[in-house]
């Protein structure tokens, strides 16, 4: 997926789509696929940038497949938590398009700094979805090499990773890896709540003054646990970028096509040395903040229903059907694959062993510590003292 430059490939069969500035009801919202599944040919953003995509039929079907798989795997993880197999799960339900659209816009050389909810981006990077589940099962705390996967470990402290992304992007520029089509770009994910964090604002300053090749990708899912957007900001979040001196754009985060187009443009600008930008993906967290949360305490059912009507997957399905890009067999096959992969995921989660207690002393320091050596040895002897006893 995501091969080539959108706008170059030729399209066929589609009924003549419209072009317009922004979306109905929000002139600044970039939208290329309406909730009803109608295509919009192109949208001109507030700064005059023209956003469009032109995928092949196979690519459209690929996006649909991603969305369905990501949702199914997420639902499986929620179920695993409910059954006591995961300690916690942060569901992405409702945010599939924001993650698949931006994730598929990434190129191999690009680097991702996620929060703890970017399971969909991780999937689109071609990474085995089992990778972050050790963290949520409690058998590790990530445990992967960010450089191997071009995907940093999940970061739970809100907004902290935006600074890491900025520093990494400064390193990209210092390495001379920007300025051409093969340049490297960096993307930092965060949420609406994080925009209140000092670290995020510091990251904006740093990225701006160092012209870092970075895309700030804010999934505005309307809630920071229980607190609505109004508690974080009095201006639309994408307009925060103005004050820091780089472009900001608001995209329909439930529209996988628009999210792809906007992210692709921003990443290309970054890789060509044109500096950072902010994307506000306007979306909605359909589920709880995490499995520990009860959203019925702070939001009303009618609001959730209104967003249900903007579902990111339903609109792609409607589009594929209307344009006869996919048939019933295809949808059934995708559902079957999703089921198969989620069963496979479940089996592997259940098979994850608890770590050996002695390993809790490992990797505190690259060069070790005599203090830890002593404690490890004492603890080991303590454990051995139980051998042969009834305990």
């Amino acid at each position, binding site marked *: 997926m995501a091969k080539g430059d959108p706008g170059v490939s030729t399209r066929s069969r589609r009924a003549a789509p419209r072009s317009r500035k922004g979306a109905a009801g929000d002139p600044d919202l970039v939208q290329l696929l309406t909730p009803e599944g109608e295509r919009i040919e192109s949208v001109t953003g507030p700064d005059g940038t023209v956003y469009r995509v032109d995928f092949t039929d196979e690519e459209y079907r690929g996006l649909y497949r991603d969305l369905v798989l990501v949702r199914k795997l997420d639902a499986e993880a929620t179920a695993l938590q409910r059954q006591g197999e995961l300690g916690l799960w942060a569901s992405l339900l409702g945010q599939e398009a924001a993650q698949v659209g931006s994730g598929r816009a990434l190129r191999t050389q690009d680097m991702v*700094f996620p929060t703890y909810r970017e399971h969909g981006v991780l999937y689109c990077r071609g990474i085995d979805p089992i990778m972050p589940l050790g963290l949520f099962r409690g058998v*590790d*705390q*990530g*445990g*992967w*090499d*960010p*450089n*191997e996967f071009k995907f*940093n*470990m999940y*970061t739970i*402290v809100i907004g*902290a990773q*935006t*600074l*890491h*992304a*900025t*520093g*990494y*992007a*400064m*390193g*990209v520029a*210092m*390495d001379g890896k920007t300025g051409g089509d093969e340049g490297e770009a960096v993307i930092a994910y965060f949420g609406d709540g994080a925009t209140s964090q*000092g*670290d995020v604002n*510091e*990251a904006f*300053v*740093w990225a701006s*003054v160092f012209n870092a090749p970075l895309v700030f990708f804010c999934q505005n899912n309307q809630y920071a646990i229980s607190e609505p957007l109004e508690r974080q900001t009095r201006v639309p979040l994408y307009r925060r970028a103005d004050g820091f001196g780089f472009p900001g754009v608001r995209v329909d985060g439930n529209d996988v096509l628009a999210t792809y187009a906007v992210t692709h443009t921003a990443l290309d600008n970054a890789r060509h040395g044109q500096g950072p930008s902010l994307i506000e993906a306007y979306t909605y967290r359909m589920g709880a903040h995490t499995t520990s949360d009860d959203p019925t305490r702070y939001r009303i059912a009618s609001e959730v229903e209104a967003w249900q009507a903007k579902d990111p997957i339903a609109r792609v399905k409607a589009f594929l059907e209307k344009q006869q890009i996919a048939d019933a067999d295809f949808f059934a096959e995708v559902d079957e694959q999703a089921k198969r992969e989620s069963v496979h995921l479940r089996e592997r989660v259940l098979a994850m062993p608890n770590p050996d207690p002695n390993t809790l002393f*490992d*990797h*505190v*320091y*690259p*060069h070790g*510590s*005599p*203090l*830890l050596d002593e404690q490890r040895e004492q603890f080991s002897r303590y454990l051995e003292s139980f051998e042969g006893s009834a305990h």
Partner: protein
Amino acid sequence: MATETLTIGKALNTGLRRALENDPKVVIMGEDVGKLGGVFRITDGLQKDFGDQRVIDTPLAESGIIGTAIGLAIRGYRPVCEIQFDGFVYPAYDQIVSQVAKMHYRSRGKLRIPMVIRIPFGGGIGAVEHHSESPEAYFSHTAGLKVVSCANPQDAYVMIQQAIASDDPIIFLEPKRRYWEKGPVELDAPLADAYPLHASRVVRPGTDVTLLAYGPMVRTCLDAASAAAEDGRELEVIDLRTISPLDLGVAYESVRRTGRAVVVHEAPSNVGLGAEIAARITEECFYSLESPVLRVTGFDTPYPAARVEEEYLPDLDRVLDAVDRTFGW
């Protein structure tokens, strides 16, 4: 072998220069470290010689300094961050404690953050508030960080290079009131042959009482030992050098001989390094002790106004008073 007389400040500057020469991945970053050379001139001349991509003047935000340095480290750089004063490190505390310290552990050893965070620390320079603090206990309490402090020009020159070469994240505490003290520095001795970074050292032998200190208080203890010698009492002074992890083997050996120990630091006593050191000496040397391990420290107050800091800071007389008290049991 070239031996020069340098101040601690100049020795640090020369050590940083060596590190920049020896490894192109080393970058220095902080507030005013470029043209100005830092408010204490520790990075003087480095940006001029290595450019503004190696010696980076950052925006004025400490969390940003450490957070972006983490990203640079993930990218393969070896950042040396300057925090301008001890009391300004707290905005970066979350990035240091939650991110720098834990990355290696969380990645199960796959990621290294070879970062040095230089902090001029301690009082005695007549400064306004927030410029004289001793925050070492906060960092020593955090697994994943190592904490060291130099006390003389030779150590300053060598230890800063060792810290930069280490893959461990290291809080490097510089005794700011001693920046201008001079001493001989061997400039050409190979780093590989140097005294280890995480090792304590006897800096004055003695037989009667063991004094333990690090950073700025090593000089105070040496002065106290000289004064005590005039009264016929021989104090052994140990420069701990490594604060976390502590290296107390030398101290145990000493206390088994002297039977008495006094720990000296500027930081307040409550839940400080002195408490940890006293507990460990008590566990290891219980049957050798002639008196409890005593502490001479700053008081459990905020760091006071400059005109009373002489009363707050441990000095020669308070150290000798504690030495006397160890003979009262």
